[in-house]
């Protein structure tokens, strides 16, 4: 019977080409957008390699300072981090690094603008990049303020083309950096860690001498385990209290948040101080996903009703020859499931193609996007649910049609 259903489902889909196109477009587009959006989110929010140290990393990204007439919300300065965060004892280790800034360099008599990041040696310990060539700079190079650099393979290709960059110099207005290591650009999965060239933070002329509490530095704090997060957060609050005490007179509010990558993103979206930001964030995400899928489902219900009404004669014939209402509902469900699965397959192929184009284009500088199979399957499941819902309601209504009326409906 199933074979017969599939056969007729395909026939009907081929016969009603416009309906099939609209339905498939709705399903494919919905799945495509969801897959791509979620791929982006997963990419931004989760560590590159499961089980990597980033699983137990906390980020300090924003400081809020309020004085009599001032209110500043900014990244902290190196000075602030060094004075108040470095003395913390509960973390295993921590790394400070600047936001990337632009600098000019020259290659083959052409000026190039590249993104430069100042960081310490611990940065490399926490992020555990595989080095294509050379090695990261270590504690000695940082303390000596050596003009050395780690670059990405894309930067290497742009400046040195096919030759090995190790030992060669990259000219910048602030000095010539000797390349000592190359990492793969697509391994950079965190927006905060993105740059084209990484140099020791001690080579930064201005940043280390700024003694105001805000500037453009990030703290990447590594816990010994996730269970240490509460203790680290507590110690972090005590560090802020100390800072507030020291800055009394200038600022009477010194606040900041420390959290996982997801916490940081949800704080940006929902503001600081939300109690359960992660739960809120995911609730909003799921809500948006459902909302996004409801509209095509309603559209499908309407399309299905008109499609099934056209087939009332067939319903009458099947009833006359012994089909029960439930059997007919089953038939229309199979048809909808087939339609949804075809849409799903198209969406999967399209999403893979689009994501691979986005990855290859380098449009999103730290991006390596792939179709997340779990997410895709969940989206497909939700689509199937709506597909069933949109098929069952009209099918149930039509299956209850009086056989005599159904036969009169349309001449077969």
């Amino acid at each position, binding site marked *: 019977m199933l074979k017969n259903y599939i056969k*007729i489902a395909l026939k009907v889909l081929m016969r009603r080409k416009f309906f099939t196109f609209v339905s498939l477009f709705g399903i494919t587009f919905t799945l495509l957008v969801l897959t791509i959006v979620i791929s982006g989110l997963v990419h931004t929010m989760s560590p590159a390699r499961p089980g990597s140290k980033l699983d137990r990393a906390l980020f300090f990204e924003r400081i809020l300072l309020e004085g009599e007439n001032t209110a500043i919300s900014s990244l902290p300065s190196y000075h602030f981090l060094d004075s108040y965060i470095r003395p913390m004892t509960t973390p295993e280790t921590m790394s400070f690094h600047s936001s990337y800034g632009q600098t000019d360099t020259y290659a083959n008599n052409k000026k190039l603008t590249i993104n430069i990041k100042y960081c310490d040696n611990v940065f490399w310990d926490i992020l555990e990049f595989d080095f294509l060539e050379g090695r990261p700079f270590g504690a000695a190079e940082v303390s000596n303020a050596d003009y050395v650099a780690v670059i990405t393979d894309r930067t290497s290709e742009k400046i040195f083309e096919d030759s090995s960059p190790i030992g060669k110099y990259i000219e910048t207005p602030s000095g010539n950096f000797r390349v000592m290591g190359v990492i793969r650009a697509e391994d950079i999965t965190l927006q905060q860690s993105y740059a084209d060239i990484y140099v020791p933070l001690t080579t930064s002329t201005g940043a280390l001498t700024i003694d105001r509490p805000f500037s453009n530095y990030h703290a990447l704090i590594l816990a010994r385990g996730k269970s240490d997060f509460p203790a680290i957060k507590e110690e972090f609050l005590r560090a802020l209290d100390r800072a507030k005490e020291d800055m009394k007179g200038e600022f009477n509010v010194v606040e900041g948040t420390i959290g996982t990558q997801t916490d940081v993103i949800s704080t940006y979206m929902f503001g600081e101080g939300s109690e359960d930001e992660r739960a809120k964030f995911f609730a909003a995400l799921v809500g948006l996903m459902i909302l996004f899928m409801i509209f095509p489902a309603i559209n499908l219900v309407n399309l299905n009703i008109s499609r099934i009404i056209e087939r009332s004669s*067939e319903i009458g014939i099947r009833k006359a020859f012994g089909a029960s209402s439930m059997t007919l509902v089953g038939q229309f469900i199979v048809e909808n499931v087939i339609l949804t699965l075809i849409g799903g397959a198209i969406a999967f192929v399209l999403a893979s193609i689009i994501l691979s184009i986005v990855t290859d284009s380098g449009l999103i500088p730290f991006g390596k996007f792939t179709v997340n199979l779990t997410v895709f399957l969940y989206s497909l499941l939700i689509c199937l649910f709506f597909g069933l819902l949109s098929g069952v309601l009209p099918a149930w209504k039509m299956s209850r049609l009086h056989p005599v009326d159904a036969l009169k409906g349309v001449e077969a």
Partner: protein
Amino acid sequence: MIQLTNVEKVYRTNTVETLALKDINISIDEGALMSVMGPSGSGKSTLLNIIGLLDAPSKGDVEIEGQAVMKLDNRAMARFRNSKIGFIFQSYHLINDLTVLDNVELPLLYRRCSASNRRKKALAALDKVGLNARTKHFPTQLSGGQCQRVAIARAIVGEPDIILADEPTGNLDSAMSDEIMSILMNLNKNEKTTIVMVTHNHELARKTEKIIRLHDGSQVD
């Protein structure tokens, strides 16, 4: 075999009440070949639909093979139709998206029957109506007479005890009508299938053993 007692059928809308059948008492024996005649709107198709369990009477009892069929629930009625009754309609009512063979197999889909067995039975039914060379054609590729023969094959494939034919030759020319009628008469004679046929055609009706005449919903004789 089929017993209708004091059957009445009233169609009601918000404003109008139409009496389609009034006090019908009919007894049809097993293996009978019977025709129902009457002018348009006299209630012939309504009577056939009630016998075929496609419609329910407003009053009265319908018994088929000793069973009070109106007491059956929808699912049991569907099963009963599937196993006991075959329908032939004036406008064939074939499913255009299915091939001739798939159309004929249709009643067997709703009972326990393997795919190979379905195919075997459908081919045998098509053989009986002389259409076994057209199994892969679609209804739109066939003439009216051929379509009706497919419809007859579909009606007999499940080996029903009763065939209800609603003006089976209404859309056909006289030569084709004779051919369809002879198929039905052979079925009645050889398979002992009870056949109730609605027709306007006096000549065809005369070939049946018994004629029931209806006028304005009432039995005339």
